[in-house]
């Protein structure tokens, strides 16, 4: 074929496979079962998450998007009777390999949860937590790193005068940014956000989204969200999941204007499905 001619289907298909150099997390035929329930949490999911981009997982409740996210820092290990098969590799290393230090993995793959969960400690100690468990205890180093993390999380100006105050006195949006600061203080490579704005008001939500936009220059971000508009706003790539399967994965621009799969279409346009 001539180079000029346009393959019509190429326009509608996922973008060409990203080069290996750009892949941060690679998921290959991942399945997840819970022994307690007959349901399959994840079935044969394969996808590649590009580095320093925002990838959003959307889908109805119970579709497995959070389960998939929790596979990336092995949070599912905490659930008794979870059985996993397939491969997840971070920068080419299989994170489910025997001998992988899970704590070390979680330092590389930070996570922010649905409801803000600052520790019942001071703002300072919250951000210092990850550093302290790594053995960083020098006041000067801590001060520096904490200021950096809080600045990066766009929270410094609001809390710099009350670092010793309890983190629980912050507003919900501030708490969530504090939790993000806490996560990035340990300088992870990947930041997993599990519905980070679902408990926040619209303005706080926009602040978080703005923050995500700034953070993606440094971190690979994976975000799970119920809010399709949010996924459309913040993400570069979007994966639509349903019933434990990956239905469609592609560039956000395409997925939200012209999805390939009728299931995706039904979901993002709000039809019965």
């Amino acid at each position: 074929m001539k180079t000029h001619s346009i393959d019509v289907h190429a326009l509608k298909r996922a973008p060409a496979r990203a080069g290996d150099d750009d892949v941060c997390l690679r998921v290959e035929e991942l399945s997840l079962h819970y022994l307690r329930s007959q349901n399959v949490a994840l079935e044969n999911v394969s996808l590649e998450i590009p580095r320093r981009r925002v990838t959003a997982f959307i889908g109805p409740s119970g579709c497995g998007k959070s389960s998939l996210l929790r596979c990336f820092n092995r949070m599912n290990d905490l659930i008794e009777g979870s059985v996993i098969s397939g491969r997840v590799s971070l920068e080419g290393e299989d994170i489910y390999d025997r001998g992988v230090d899970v704590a070390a993995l979680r330092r590389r793959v930070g996570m922010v949860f649905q409801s803000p969960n600052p520790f019942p400690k001071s703002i300072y100690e919250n951000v210092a937590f990850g550093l302290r468990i790594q053995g960083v205890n020098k006041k000067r180093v801590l001060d520096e790193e904490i200021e950096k993390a809080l600045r990066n999380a766009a929270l410094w100006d609001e809390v710099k005068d009350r670092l010793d105050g309890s983190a629980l006195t912050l507003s919900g949006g501030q708490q969530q940014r504090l939790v993000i600061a806490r996560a990035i203080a340990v300088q992870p490579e990947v930041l997993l956000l599990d519905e980070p704005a679902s408990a926040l008001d619209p303005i706080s939500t926009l602040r978080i989204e703005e923050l995500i936009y700034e953070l993606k220059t440094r971190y690979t971000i994976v975000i799970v969200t119920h809010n399709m508009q949010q996924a459309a706003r913040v993400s570069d790539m979007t994966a639509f999941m349903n019933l434990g399967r990956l239905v469609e994965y592609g560039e956000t621009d395409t997925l939200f204007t012209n999805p390939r799969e009728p299931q995706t279409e039904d979901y993002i346009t709000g039809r019965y499905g």
Partner: protein
Amino acid sequence: MKPTDVPEISGALRAGVRRAEPMVWLSAGAVTLALMLLVGLLFLLASRGFSHFWPQPLILLDNVESKAQLGILLDREPVPYAQDYRLLLHLGGEDFFDSPLVWVEEATLRARSTPQAALAIERRDQGPLFAFAEGVDYGEARLELSDWNVADQVAAIRKVRGTAGRVYLRLASGRPVTLPASDLIEVSSPNAMSGMARIRHAFSALGRFVREAPRRGNVQGGVFPAIVGTVLLVLLMTAIVAPLGVLAAVYLQEYAQRGPLTRMVRIGVNNLAGVPSIVYGVFGLGFFVYGLGGSLDQLFFSDSLPAPTLGAPGLLWAALTMALLTLPVVIVSTEEGLARVPRNLREGSLALGATRAEALFRVVLPAASQAVLTGLILAVARATGEVAPLILVGVAKYAPGLPVSSEFPFLHLDQQFMHLGFYIYDLGFQSPSIETAEGLVFATALLLVLIVLLLNLAAVMLRSRLRNAFGTQELR
């Protein structure tokens, strides 16, 4: 607005109020009853206890049948099968009378007075003495006091304390008594005292009660060793039960596999709280004192056998037994606290690369610290009031030597100790003259209640400090 505008609504509201009322009254009534009982108890303890220190008037009775008698009026009751009343008089000076308590029938009374010159003398080795001053000797010569006024008499007699002199007294019967200065502790003239002086006297007596060691088979003197013993026991018990209970709860809640075995252990722990405390005492005696202490003796102190070193009741064994007794409370409360720590705090710390232990000790346990403290408060309250097991495993009727000293090892865990609870029991039910010891029993009981209150208050303050440190917001 016309009143007829809202008849239905107000009717419905009224009906609602009417329905709610019985429940409100019932619950409020329960609270009131409980409060009244508590206040009543405290009032009883306080009034009866404090009256022990209050200078009682000395009554001089002139009797048809016998000689004059000077003493404190303890009771007045009808004579059985007679139309008369009789008085119970505490004469003191049991070394001079057959019995320090006498009944005097009112019909036989010739005269009754409260002489200003009557003195109440507290002695070191014998019971109180109620008498009149004759003279005083500071070691040189007898100084006649009979003509002095009572305030000067008291001052003169007080001066003799600490010298090698003596005090000359006369009992109401006219019998002279010579008292060595070393035997004199305090002298007062209750009938001649002003209000302020009475109060001063009462407080000084109270101070001595708290500061001094008991004398004369506990019926005299203070309870200081018992206070120290009680507090020490509770602190030691807390030091043992806190880590033990918290660790056990952590294991049950965090590490143990969820299954029938864990459930059974938990049910077992819960039921341990209901085992009668004397059973713990028996267990402590058998396991700790004879078992553990006995074998330690054989291992390390075999030279001094058969005299036991550790194989006898002592502070350590008592503290261990009490720790065992209060362990269920601490475990249950801690477990509840741990279960209430939100999952996302745990996950949050794990997600930052903390190991399970780090998450537990840096985040989860601190977040549950209030529940742990609540458990400890309950444990302390229970341990302070518990007497039965202590009788078996370490408490002594009389042990004026404190289990703490300035000599190595400072804390003598093998010693027996005194305990306020046991002191009350002993004084109230085992002492030869219950009537004279009654005030002491109430005073001690009040003291015990105050100590429990104080310990609890300390824990509550610590808890609220923690709450402030961890933010005002309640944990979700």
